[in-house]
């Protein structure tokens, strides 16, 4: 049986998450790590959307094609969609913050190697 699109999306999402995690743990360059996190963030978002997807339904936008009356039966669950939007925004914020950090770190230490910032330990 062919996997449904939701399943595919979910698999993709998880693969992305794993790739992201793997990258974040193995790449020593700060920027690459940030990219890896972005990947995993995307993966998470895909998973969220995939979970909210219901086969054969449309986007939860109330307009001419979908009227309020039968929205419950026609549109997919809008909550994950809403969540994913928030998540993307927050992810963006965090990513920006991380980039700012990376910039500052590079300014001060002339390095982007995560293994170089180990003065604080034990």
């Amino acid at each position, binding site marked *: 049986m062919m996997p449904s699109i939701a399943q595919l999306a979910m698999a993709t999402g998880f693969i992305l998450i794993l790739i992201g995690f793997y990258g974040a743990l193995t790449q020593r360059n*700060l920027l690459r790590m940030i990219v890896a*996190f972005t990947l995993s963030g995307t993966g998470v978002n895909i998973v969220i959307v995939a979970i909210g997807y219901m086969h054969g339904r449309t986007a939860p936008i109330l307009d001419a094609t979908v009227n309020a009356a039968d929205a419950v039966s026609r549109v997919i669950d809008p909550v994950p969609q809403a969540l994913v939007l928030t998540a993307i925004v927050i992810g963006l914020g*965090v990513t920006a913050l991380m980039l700012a950090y990376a910039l500052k770190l590079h300014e001060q230490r002339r390095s982007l190697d995560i293994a170089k910032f180990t003065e604080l330990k034990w």
Partner: protein
Amino acid sequence: MVSPLYLIVLALAAAFLLGLLNPERRGRAYAVTLVALAGMTLISADWLWAFTMEGIDPVDVYTAGAEPPFAINLRMGLAEAALTLLVNLTGLLSALYLKDVLLAGGRRTMAVLLISVMALVGIILTRDLFNLFVFFELVVISSAGLVLLANDKDGGPASGLSLSAGFKYLIVSQFISAFLLLGIIFAYHATGTLNIDGMANASLGLATGGTIAFFLMFMAIVAELKPFPANGWALDIYESAHPAFSAIFSAATGAAALYAVDKLLLIGGAEWLPIATGIGIVTFIAANLFALPQTHDRRLLGYSSIAQTGLVLVVLGQRDLLGDSTPFIAFGLLISHAVAKAGLFWLSGLLKNRQLADWAALRQRPLLVFAFVTFTAMLTGLPPFPGFYAKWELVHQLAGAGQFTLLGLILLGALIEAGYLFRWFGYLMKREAPVETVPCTGHKVGPVLVAVAAGWALAYLWGDLAGGLFGRDNLLLALPLLFALSFLLLDWLPAWIKNSLAIAGMVAFFLLTWGEYDPLRLIFAIIFLIGGALTLLASYSVHGRRIGFYPAAMLMYAGMVMLIRATTSFDFFAAWELLTVGSYFLILRGKHSEPHALSYILFSLGGAFLILAGFALAAAGAPQFDLASLAQVAAPAAPWVFVLLAVGFMTKTAAIGLHIWLPGAHAEAETDVSPMVSGILLKAGLYGMMVLLLAMGKQQLYGVELTHVLLWIAALTALIGNLMAVFQEDAKRLLAYSSIGQMGYALFGLALMNHLGWLMALVFVINHYIYKSMLFLAVGGVAKRTGTREMYKMGGLIRLMPLSFIAVLIGIIAVSGVPPLSGFGGRWVFYNAIMSAEYRLPMVVLFMAGPIAFLYLFRLIYTIFLGQLKDELRRVKEAPFWIVLPQMIYVALLLVFAVVPGLALRHVDAYLNQFFPEGGLHWGGGTIISDYGYWNPVAIMIIVGVIFTTVFALLLIVNRKAQMVKQFNIVFSAERPFRPETTHYAWNFYAPYRKAMGFLTQPFVTRFWDTLADLLHTAGDLGRRLYDGNGQSYGFHFLAFVVIVFFVGGI
């Protein structure tokens, strides 16, 4: 009532308002920030007032006008009100504290701070999972901003530390947020709601994939609590961030995250509680262990924060078991931790250097030292702070439910924590102070003082709450304790006024209450109160203000008085802790007493924990019990209770194996403190033993009669104490070891469990108080005058210090038990007591110890007062009047007690009849008759006196013309002495004895405890290497944590 929504609105509005302000008008922006935070604080306070005083119900706030699950709702209840108050207040105070930094950073920084506080409030209030996630992310983002407040941008080797710490934080947060999001969405998928209560009702665990979903969420939120091992990032932040932010991070963020976990556990249900417990306890132990080898103050505080959070997690994990008292315990621990940690972080900001020993600079400001003491006491759970009540409840409930492993681990971790905290306090008080002055600006000291005030207010509150919940008296209202604390306020007075007040107070209290004691307690009451007042006479010899002495001394005495007045286990234990702490501060005052005071407090707290465990075991789930009902403890638990309590009390009497703190502590203490801690304090342990033995009597464990074990311990203690005393060069150490030996005798008497044994113990209690106080004072006076405690450096002082000599002479005759002085009474009763003992072998050891006393006693008097006077000491004066006066009183007391021992003993003898009807004494005329022998102190005194006078008169007649000569007029094999130093035979006085018996004085016990301490340190040092400082490792730790919990937790 203002809607709780305004908490968030206010912060947001202020943050937006800041954006509108002129960037250059920073003062105005700062004012806006403060007003917003103050407003939020007020709102929370208002709610808290309403919940506690008016008893209103929790309020739900529905955003967007819809009920969940269609909209997010916030809930304001008692817990939320308290927590938001905590968060807001911490935020407000930190903002005050950050005045300089915020003004320099401008409105954006202020906005971040506001957002941070707002997000924390949001975490607490929200009942929506996704909303929770959002607030968490806000916390992350704002925290990452606030971390950078640390002023380390101006180069130097540590430059950019907070930057790297912040980045590591972000790395881990990314992992966490991924988990959290995934968890939330799966949970939503499984239940169709995001509302926490909704999810809880939907029994998430039963839904498909629900367990995994919850697991992911749970791991993410728990990770915010910095559990071991996924906590390296947090430590780096604590170490590098601005202390004001660390205060928020530790107190507020920790509290919020804990509450989030609490909410989450609502969803998960009971099966997740053990996992929370496990994570908590492992974190608690590991963090405390790793803190041991720390030398960096903020990192240490970080470890400690993590540990405390872990402990609260344990409490949350045990909520099933703890039931209704969960909030009382959890909040007690959490708020103690939050207030103390915030205060300590703020304090750390006042100091320039980051090594623990650099805190010695704080000594310039007694007020700040007091703050430190308050915080330390709160963290270690000492009375009267909330942590104490919480610990008591926790331990009792755990013991009641048979959770002994958990109980043991909690106490172990708490002991380790006390270890490093008190070590730190020792550094603070004793290490060489750096030259830097501690800046005392109002906006920085203010928050600290508020924390102190909050600490004491909470102490009162928890006392009150405990009263409401468990029907106890508020500790803070106990008269003795109030009296002791009042000296904190009077500390600016000159010492002599405080001394007079103290003496008057103690005597007055005795006069007021003496009718309330039975004869047994009366003896202790007299020793503690009247005896204590008597020793305080010596304190008149100290001039100046003597900051800190009187609160400590009075705390100790208050503890002791409360101890004998205690009727319930709780009062008893609280008093025990109070006297321990008071005496610790007293001991710490000695010049070189830092390590000894530390080992004292550690042994004492260890002992106290055992007592606590014993009481908890005996209580069998009840919150407390009457001391008298110890007798009714049921069979399987009873011997264990006995063992725990006995060992606990024996840490105070310094029984062998637990004695190593005593010599240093007593020897290094100040002149007038030594008699207090030796003559008086040790009796507290004996009192404990008496209470225990009276109630529980003989107990058997695996067929071993425990009192027989006690007999052995007591005998060995007496032997080793005496033997060690023989080989001391330091006069006060000698006396200290002698005390160990004497306590061995007293313990032996108790363990005999017969009438005369107890009487003997009481004779020893009285005698030991009198002569040891006297000897310590005399020796202390000599040491004060000669500037040394090494006996071989003294000699020939009899002519210069005749009164001290007389005191020591009478003292050693009394100690050695030679008739006609009072020590003989003790020996006589002792022999009569062992006649009827059923178990005789340990007496051999005790017999061995007896004559050894002569060795050290002679050495004491000879090497100090007899022999050759040294050059430098030729002009030494008699000890100060106020040190000699009590000695002379003691001499008189000893003589009186020698002639009429019945004065005290008759009543006790009669009183003991109700416990041991057999074998009492018969008090006929002057003669005291036992079943075996008889003794007439008056006759002995008269006969010896008459013979002595006659012989003396004879000698005077024959030898009236004797030529008084000087010290070198001795026959010296027709030579002459070279110098006094080479003629005074004093050092290593018992060299031949050492050759024969020295093998017994190998420091086995010291070595054992040293090895144990080393092991703990090494373990901590190895363990903390896990945190290698690499952000990726921290990320990996988090994933590992998840995996470990997954498999260990069996999900």
